[in-house]
């Protein structure tokens, strides 16, 4: 990977420690605090909208292959060239072939997590095609040689001073004032020249409407407009779950996305592309390609992880996550960070090596589940993943034999809910292999499923604790070190509740 390492370390713990010790990063992260309240306000203020949007997302997931076929047929009818890419390598190959065929030299990109997922910018540059990120936040991290640290606000990990310093490297010796408007004005002028020179426009998609074949892009800078108006050729990289059933679903889904992402009722710009330029039109791409990216997604259909595909990439779960707000995105060392990244990264990992630590780096506080505008039970999925990750190799989710019967969403009233496979599959799956970790927990559970085993094991600990006065210890002895490295540890009380109950010693002090 060619990206500069922002928070170094081989493990989540090491990177988290580095992030927590980075004063500039901690200062920059303070900016997320306003978003915390935005996300919470959405979670509590628009229940009807949430339920409707959540149900709409499940409607397409319930029969995703059919909706994809429908979307593809419509796109072809409009004259769009449709490609299916099973893996990131397939997607890169398709896109590089197009770039070569079109003899493209400069690709202008709007913000897209899917292109991060397939490392598209690196692939283009390696093939001799210059690729420029045109979302200001993305441009900043590109110039810095980094990855975005947040899917909505990619440069949230940088202070204004760091941003000015970063962009100066492209300013031909000009000094940029440490001031929002001046920096933005410089970037606007600088990027405008790139837009006009671009011969390949690359976008993602926030939604793809199956009935009209419309690609929908949400931006606050209008850069997706420019990426799709100016270049001769446009490529939209569309992960398969972005398909929605109907164009008419947008009035439900769009405001929920923008409110959850930034608190806006609607974004500053809304770009909708329905087919390439038609005869008589003055702008738009002559050729429009859509790359439908699977990358392990359809494998999740019919499993308890299917809910994860409802995600609309709003970033609300990142903004409310106490862990994310402390360690920032780079500590996850993954394309997707925060709670949704902790779930998605190990699920998308082809060889099962990526993100295995991530689901364990959560306090399971559930703020993510509460904030999610499409009602993905993120905390529950983290617990389920922990169980599945105790096994070696890639996650092989159980496919559920009996999926709940699902009726079409448009035949229900808004807020009537949906069927979530995660809630229905028992967490216990048969045939889990043995491991040292499993043996320890089994032995503990067996001992504590009898009152005698419980009493004898706790009595042993109590006898040890009686040797230490005061009820607390800071001793960094092996069995306690994970706790006492940062906190004093409480010791068992001199008499347990059950002992005191036996003598009715009810003094609460």
């Amino acid at each position: 990977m060619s990206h500069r390492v922002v928070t170094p370390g081989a493990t989540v713990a090491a990177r988290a420690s580095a992030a927590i010790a980075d004063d500039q990063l901690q200062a920059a992260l303070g900016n997320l605090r306003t978003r915390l309240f935005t996300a919470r306000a959405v979670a509590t203020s628009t229940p009807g909208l949430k339920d409707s949007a959540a149900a709409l997302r499940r409607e397409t997931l319930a029969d995703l292959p059919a909706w994809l076929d429908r979307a593809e047929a419509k796109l072809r009818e409009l004259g769009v060239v449709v490609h299916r890419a099973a893996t990131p390598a397939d997607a890169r190959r398709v896109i590089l072939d197009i770039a070569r065929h079109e003899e493209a030299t400069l690709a202008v990109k709007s913000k897209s997590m899917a292109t991060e997922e397939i490392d598209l910018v690196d692939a283009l540059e390696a093939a001799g095609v210059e690729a420029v990120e045109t979302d200001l936040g993305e441009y900043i991290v590109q110039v810095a040689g980094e990855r975005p640290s947040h899917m909505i606000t990619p440069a949230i990990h940088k202070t204004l001073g760091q941003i000015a310093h970063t962009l100066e490297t492209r300013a031909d010796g000009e000094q940029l004032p440490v001031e929002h408007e001046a920096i933005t004005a410089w970037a606007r002028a600088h990027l405008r020249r790139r837009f006009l020179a671009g011969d390949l426009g690359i976008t993602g998609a926030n939604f793809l409407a199956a009935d009209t074949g419309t690609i929908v892009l949400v931006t606050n800078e209008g850069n997706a407009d420019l990426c799709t108006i100016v270049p001769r050729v446009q490529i939209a990289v569309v992960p398969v779950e972005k398909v929605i059933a109907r164009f008419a679903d947008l009035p439900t889904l769009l405001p929920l996305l923008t409110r959850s992402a930034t608190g806006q009722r609607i974004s500053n710009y809304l770009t909708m592309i329905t087919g390439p330029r038609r005869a008589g039109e003055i702008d738009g791409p002559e050729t429009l390609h859509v790359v439908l990216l699977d990358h392990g997604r359809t494998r999740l259909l019919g499993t308890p992880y299917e809910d994860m595909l409802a995600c609309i990439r709003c970033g609300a779960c990142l903004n409310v996550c106490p862990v994310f707000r402390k360690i920032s995105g780079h500590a996850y060392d993954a394309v997707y960070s925060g709670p949704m990244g902790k779930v998605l990264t190990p699920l998308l990992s082809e060889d099962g090596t990526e993100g295995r630590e991530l689901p364990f780096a959560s306090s399971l506080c559930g703020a993510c589940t509460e904030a999610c505008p499409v009602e993905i039970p993120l905390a529950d999925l983290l617990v389920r993943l922990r169980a599945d990750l105790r096994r070696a190799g890639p996650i092989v989710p159980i496919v559920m034999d009996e999926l709940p019967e699902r009726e079409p969403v448009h035949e229900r009233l808004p807020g009537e809910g949906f069927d979530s496979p995660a809630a229905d599959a028992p967490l216990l799956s048969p045939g889990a292999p043995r491991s040292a970790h499993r043996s320890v927990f089994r032995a503990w559970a067996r001992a504590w499923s009898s009152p005698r085993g419980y009493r004898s094991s706790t009595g042993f600990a109590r006898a040890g604790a009686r040797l230490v006065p005061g009820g607390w210890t800071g001793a960094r002895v092996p069995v306690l070190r994970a706790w006492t490295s940062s906190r004093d540890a409480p010791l068992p009380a001199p008499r347990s509740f059950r002992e005191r109950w036996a003598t009715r010693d009810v003094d609460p002090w």
Partner: protein
Amino acid sequence: MPTVGLFVTCVVDQIVPQVGMAAVRLLEAAGCTVEFPAEQTCCGQPACNAGEPEAAAVLARHWIDVFGGYDAIVGPSGSCVAMVHHWYPRLLGGAERERARELAARTFELTSFLADELATLELGARLDATVTVHDSCHGLRNLGVRDAGRRLLEAAGATLVEMSEPETCCGFGGTFSLDHPEIAAPLADAKLTDAAQTEARWLASSDAACLLHLEGRRRRTGAGPEPIHTARLLAAGLER
């Protein structure tokens, strides 16, 4: 008034039995008859959260056996009660799931049992103290217990002062606080700092484990008001 099976939780039984005693006194003040089924051990949450559902299920089945006969089961910990409510039906399948669901419907977090289920805010407790309340996560988000503790404290005469982020996690998270102390400790610091700014005398919550994490950190840094279980504060205000 009902007979209550006290689900004291292993943390309270072993480390802070005073919380269990306080729960008994409050339930009795509300007119309940309290029984303590001595076969109870642990709800199994540590195993569930550590990715060991099989071990968790062993303890869940034991818990269901122990408490199955009670009409009302009350515990002084939102997180352990949430294990029964939220995870038992997800952990188990088939007939066991149905049984777990039935039992979960009769299992309550202590403050919510008093304030909502019995609708008894007036327990005879008198408190002259400023208190800031931390909403422990699982009680808040899995059980929807938001203001029961606050209402009980106010009815006892306590002055409540809110933190800027009462609903933000304290960083405990069970096994998380052992796997990631480097993150858990600064989250405790943030909570203690937020609480310190209220100038309250007490930092109250309805979850003993969160409080032990906060108190353990506070003993290192000296920051913030004294963490205490809501039940202990209320019981201290009862006539002896």
